[in-house]
């Protein structure tokens, strides 16, 4: 049977491990297998590898190596930051468009006796820093607002928020999962105290991540055990994963030096413009806002995004809409809803997110497939037919 061509434009969900990254981590499964806490040669070997990776991460975000804590991924980093700082009675500021790793952690904070204010976003999907300033209270302990939104790619004004946090002497955590590797990061320019990163969103494997914790920030750990990661995160280090994350961080830095992010933005813009120009009744979600270079989110009126995602998958193109719930069904997007998008448009929205592995030919493939698939779906849509007949 002929294998179907598969093109993957869902890199905000997960990215493939790059071959350089895989090559870097492979020796740490067999050849260099020691426990990084052991005193012997084997332990020293992996300890050195972990610390080299820590330096690469520190370079990526502009901090000291000692300020990097390795985690199991973005969710753990977000949770460690939030539960590591907030106590019952504290006030916490977040936004309505956070990833569920932050949103549901904040919901739990409320159950624990914290008060959480969720800052709304404007039509382009951005938080207004003045709103953050306005809701500050004497007992505000933490601001947690993401750098880049996973669904729209819209960048948040984190530098302004960082200034507000510094003035108010409030901790500032930012979920940097969708920004890391896509835009240059500098924790001092951002002014954040904590920043979480996920490996598999930047071509390292799933199951590894990092949390930047500014020196002097007293985090209550979530896991108790050995004194790993300076007692901030107990548990034997995931050495192959950490090595891979370090390598991915180095590659990301090189990417910015080469200007690959500009090339990626050009590909993204080509997808976006071609669709918006050639397919009627479409629009861009996040119009007017600065975005990470790999993401575009487009609504196709008169169709269900879910059906479009399935139809495209059956033809070999992987894209996504909203967030999947536990059954695998798609839930209405809280992000697009928070942006004030009409519910039918929110349900009709599709995210294309590019990765380093994508080629111009793959963009051509998508641009050939999407318009014809949208046409077919619309032909079979009761809403579309009613509208076109009556108009």
């Amino acid at each position, binding site marked *: 049977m002929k294998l179907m061509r598969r093109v993957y434009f869902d890199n905000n969900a997960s990215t493939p491990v790059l071959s350089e990254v895989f090559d870097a981590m492979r020796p740490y499964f067999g050849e260099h297998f020691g426990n990084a806490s052991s005193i012997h040669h084997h332990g020293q070997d992996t300890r050195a590898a972990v610390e080299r990776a820590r330096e690469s991460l520190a370079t990526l975000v502009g901090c000291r190596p000692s300020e990097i804590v390795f985690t199991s991924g973005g969710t753990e980093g977000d949770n460690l930051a939030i539960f590591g700082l907030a106590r019952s009675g504290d006030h916490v500021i977040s936004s309505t468009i956070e990833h569920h790793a932050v949103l549901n952690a904040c919901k739990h904070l409320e159950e624990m006796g914290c008060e959480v204010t969720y800052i709304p976003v404007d039509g382009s999907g951005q938080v207004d820093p003045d709103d953050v300033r306005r809701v500050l209270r004497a007992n505000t302990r933490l601001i947690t607002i993401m750098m880049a939104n996973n669904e729209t790619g819209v960048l948040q004004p984190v530098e302004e928020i960082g200034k507000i946090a510094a003035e108010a002497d409030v901790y500032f955590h930012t979920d940097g999962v969708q920004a890391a590797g896509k835009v240059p990061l500098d924790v001092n320019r951002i002014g954040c105290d904590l920043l979480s990163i996920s490996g598999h969103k930047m071509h390292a494997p799933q199951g590894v991540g990092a949390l930047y914790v500014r020196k002097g920030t007293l985090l209550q750990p979530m896991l108790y055990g050995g004194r790993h990661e300076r007692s901030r995160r107990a548990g034997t280090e995931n050495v192959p994963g950490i090595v891979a994350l370090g390598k991915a961080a180095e590659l990301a830095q090189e990417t910015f030096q080469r200007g690959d992010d500009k090339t990626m933005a050009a590909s993204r813009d080509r997808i976006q413009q071609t669709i918006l120009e050639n397919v009627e009744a479409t629009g861009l979600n996040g119009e007017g806002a600065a975005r990470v270079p790999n993401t575009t989110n487009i609504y196709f009126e008169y169709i*269900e995004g*879910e059906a479009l995602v399935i139809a495209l998958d059956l033809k070999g193109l992987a894209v996504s809409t909203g967030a999947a719930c536990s*059954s*695998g069904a798609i839930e209405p997007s809280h992000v697009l809803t928070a942006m004030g998008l009409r519910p039918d448009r929110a349900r009709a929205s599709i995210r294309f997110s590019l990765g380093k592995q994508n080629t111009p030919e793959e963009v051509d493939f998508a641009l050939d497939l999407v318009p014809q698939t949208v046409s*077919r779906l619309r032909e079979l*849509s009761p809403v579309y037919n009613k509208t076109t007949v009556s108009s």
Partner: protein
Amino acid sequence: MPPSKTIAVAMSGGVDSSTVAAMLRAEGHRVIGLTMQLWNQRRLAGHTGMPETVQGRCCSLDDVYDARRVAETLGIPYYVVNHEDRFERDVVRPFVEEYLSGRTPIPCSLCNNHLKFDQLLIVAQQIGADALATGHYARVEFDQACGRWLLKRPADRSKDQTYFLFGLTQEQLSRTLFPLGEMTKPEVRDLARHHGLALAEKPDSQEICFVPGGDYKNFLDAYLAEQGDALPDTAGELVTTDGNVIGEHGGIHHFTVGQRKGLGVATGSPLYVIQIKGDTRQVVVGNQEDLYCKTMRVKKINLISVADLSEPMRVQVKIRHRHDPASAQLEVSGADEMTITFDQPQRAVTPGQAAVFYDGDVVVGGGWIA
């Protein structure tokens, strides 16, 4: 072998629909598995009378897991599609409103009409499927003579599900496959085993999928509480057929026509619910013989084997799922309304239930008992 088609299978995670997927795959068709996410059981968890944890069957993760495992075993693409909004609008709300109006609803028919053979069929077509197959026990075939798609009772009469399918239109029937129509349930289980499906012995589900444990009264309470509404006071009088008040009741939604237990009055002879009057909240009780009724009106008609009914027709009518079709005369008595006159009076004609008309094995059509 017939030419290969692309067929979407509505997979519930049960043995019937799983076997359908396996059969069609074995016949060489391109099969796509679809499961509808219709109701989030967690929504009402913790409300009074509702289980703390998720116990209801509808869209349970276990069933989705089972369906996904079958798809993986068969090597077919599989997707879960979210139709929670439509399900709530077209099935759950009408279900609640019907009970509060003193009628006894059948959510499964509403789900078939508005979800499975409407929304899901549209998705199936949109993703390139020629037809939608389900695990219902029924038969569908095109009749050259009358030029219409016919819905027929299945070979296994004990599993007949045509009662829930009377609302299907010609367009829907033309795109629907019921591959189990010629099979018996034991044969289906044998085939499931033959195809190596791990769920071949999984028990059948009976209850209303979104009502955990089948306790609809607790469900009504919990749903209304979640919506921020108190359960409206539907308490009223218990009256006899001659209009004598003999007691009070706690709410009309606690009753269904033909019910004998739980009336809260003690008399010499057994009493039955004869009628529930939604407007006056009266529950009329009477003797066994008062339950029998010779004529009834049926509304919101869907005709299948005939385009219209110009003159009265002899049919057999089924007035609930477990009812032996009774001979009757069917005639138009108003706009979208028909009157049925039974040869023999029928017990417990229940407003809100469906009346489905048969001509032997063929489903003539059906409607809702007024």
